[in-house]
């Protein structure tokens, strides 16, 4: 399964890169969601996979009885998901606002900060 997930990560990244390179920045946002998932899966997979058993300590025990899933990557992924959401939300609002302000979502027509010297303003 780890192999499968590694391949999945690759596909997620490939698609994300393809999306992020699009002219329309909305596609960048879509790519961002995909690549964040890929990064989370990298961490999760790198912590190795344990089917089943969540890292919970049963009542009456001091530690998990059997082998349970690696808790640390889970905590990291959880943190990364929330941070990723914050970043995503800002990026989305930025794109939204960019359309309201610049009138386009196509990045090659966003030339206010770095005007094209050849073109008329």
């Amino acid at each position: 399964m780890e192999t499968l997930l590694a391949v999945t990560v690759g596909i997620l990244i490939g698609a994300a890169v393809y999306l992020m390179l699009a002219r329309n920045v909305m596609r960048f946002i879509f790519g961002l969601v995909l690549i964040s998932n890929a990064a989370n899966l990298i961490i999760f997979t790198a912590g190795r996979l344990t089917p089943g058993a969540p890292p919970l300590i049963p009542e009456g025990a001091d530690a998990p009885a059997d082998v349970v899933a690696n808790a640390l990557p889970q905590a990291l992924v959880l943190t990364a998901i929330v941070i990723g959401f914050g970043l995503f939300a800002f990026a989305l609002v930025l794109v939204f606002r960019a359309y309201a302000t610049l009138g386009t979502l196509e990045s090659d027509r966003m030339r206010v900060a770095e005007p094209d010297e050849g073109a008329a303003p």
Partner: protein
Amino acid sequence: MAGGRRGNGLAGVLPIAISAALFLYFLAMIPDVAASGALVIHWQWVPSLDIALSWRLDGLSLTFALLISGIGTLVMLYSNSYLRGHPQYARFALFLTSFMLAMLGLVLSDNLIALFVFWELTTITSYLLIGFGHETPKGRRSALQALFVTGAGALAMLAGLILLGRAAGSFELSDILRMGPEIRAHEHYTAILILVLAGAFTKSAQVPFHFWLPNAMAAPTPVSAFLHSATMVKAGVYLMARLHPTLSGTDAWLWSLTIAGAVTAVYASFKALSQTDLKQALAYTTLMALGTLTLFLGQQSGYAITAFATFLIVHSLYKAALFLVVGCIDHATGTREAEVLGGLARAMPITAAAAALSALSMAGFPPFLGFIGKELKYAGALAVASEPMFVAGAVLLSNALMLAVAGVVAFRPFWRRNEQPLPRAPHEAPWPMLAGPVILAILGALFGLWPDLLQTTLVDRTVQAVTGGDLEAKELKLWAGVNMPLILSIATFVLGLLLYAVHRPLRRGLQAFFARMISLDGRWDGFLDAVKGLSAWQTRTIQNGRLQSYLTITFAVVLVTLGGTMLARQVWPAAPEVGEVRWSHIAIVLLIIGGTLLAAFTRSRITAVAGLGVVGIGVAMVFIVFGAPDVAITQLLVETLVVVLVAVAMLRLPFLDRKGESDWRPGHLLLGTALGATVTAILLAVLETPLDRRLTDFFETASWPEAFGRNVVNVILVDFRALDTFGEIAVVVIAALAAYALLRTTAGRRP
């Protein structure tokens, strides 16, 4: 420029007082130096870098110090009248005084790096002084040119000084000057020499780095008198003289200095004669002098070095005087044009007298110091080890031209018949402006008559310093008998007077000639344009304002770097071990991949969002299957919010593609695929290594007994790694604030 009613107040007086006090101090040091040879004081500055404020007062530095502070005093005095009531006089005085102090620091430093510090300070202050006429484009251009050319040399020199210090094991001149043989044998000697000379030649305006100096005449005349005759331009000469004991004596040294000096001297002399602006003419004669001094420093003979020492003083005296005289003329008449000026002797008798004395010294007539200097020059030239006739010829030619220029600059404006009306009726300058030229001119005569005065106080010790004590100074005397130098002197007079007689047609010819020659000054603008062009091209190419291009480069860098490193370090995952795979797992993975591809290739926004939702659900299922309920819950909630937010945002956003356009980009797909494959390979390779689980083991065992929580993930979040979580919620808060601010700033919104 002048004419203000107000005086300059403290800003006018203080610089005079400072420089006079310094001059007197150095004067008082003459006996000590004469007695001991060199005084060295050591102050700590940056011991970690072997940089000290250590001072060295020997003949060479004392000569320079006296010239700097002495001429400085007179120039300060002069300036106070010349720029009387100027609104920016305080700044001017500050810059000029700072310059003088920097120059003194330069010649007195015993530490190479400290010397460099002062060197650069003279660069900065002279930049500010040349840019005194900052509101004209020419003034700004000249200032930049001077700064850029000398700055470039200085940076090269810095490298040279660092290498020199490394080779010598010390930055102290006291040490370095004793290590000539070792340095000359060092593997980096050639590099050191080239780099140091780069600094010296640019600062001293040796051809082909000369073109900034005439332009620097944009500065007020007292500045020119001080910086561009007596002091700053001689910093390069000083450095060559200073390092003479260490670096000289090789063919490389000999030929680079001799050729540069000779070419500069001859070229500058012709150039001087071709000028009609008196100040420009003087500027080129300064070049000529610098060339001559360089030429002598190339040699090893006692004559050459004595000639250097003498001519250094001679030139400073008469050139400063003449600059100040030209300033008086300009001040009085409003013009510096040689063809306009004439008959000023009657209106400005004192100025005329000072000009005449200085011009005679410059022309090398006896009994002025200039004559002795010239004699020594010839003696020095003839003592040159190889090709003496070449050197002597160059000196002869430049001396004759100089004589003619002296006539043009200091004789004709005063004594020829006035042909054209002057912009203003001439009048004698006030005494503070006259003091300088007069005193300097008289000194020129005085030293000519009593050369011993100079010989014992300065020249001997200077020669000793320059030669490292190897050679004795030759005697300075007006009459040395009939010898080869005397014959050459006479030839100079004849040739010079001849040239003066035909100087006007000759000037026209020269002007025509130089007009056809490559003008480095003209090339300067071309150079700057080329720099601008290159940088503009680079900006268009790299920083082109196109996000797509930025991102493509960034991802390509990631691919090339990671892929390249894998190739370079032979990193490959072994054949992937499929292991125990359940088909339900495969199905989840297929779901994720399906959602991914859907999101990537659909042209419909809502389909893309749905695809993302599927990916989110699939990833959540991975978390469920592999025992991460907390993560799965969070993932699902976040995914939901993502969909909600996108659905809200898209109400106001346009379609992904314009009508009839497709977004098919095979190149980007290839890049993405390659990158994805690379990451997969790396991840597989990582998964082949064993995982150290000691952190997790600790968390599992400590979670309940020590942190009182049964959900290990949550305990990690709020206790073991609470700081992470704290930073994370800060991200969330700030993301919300930032987004809110973005939505609520009203500026720039389109209707």
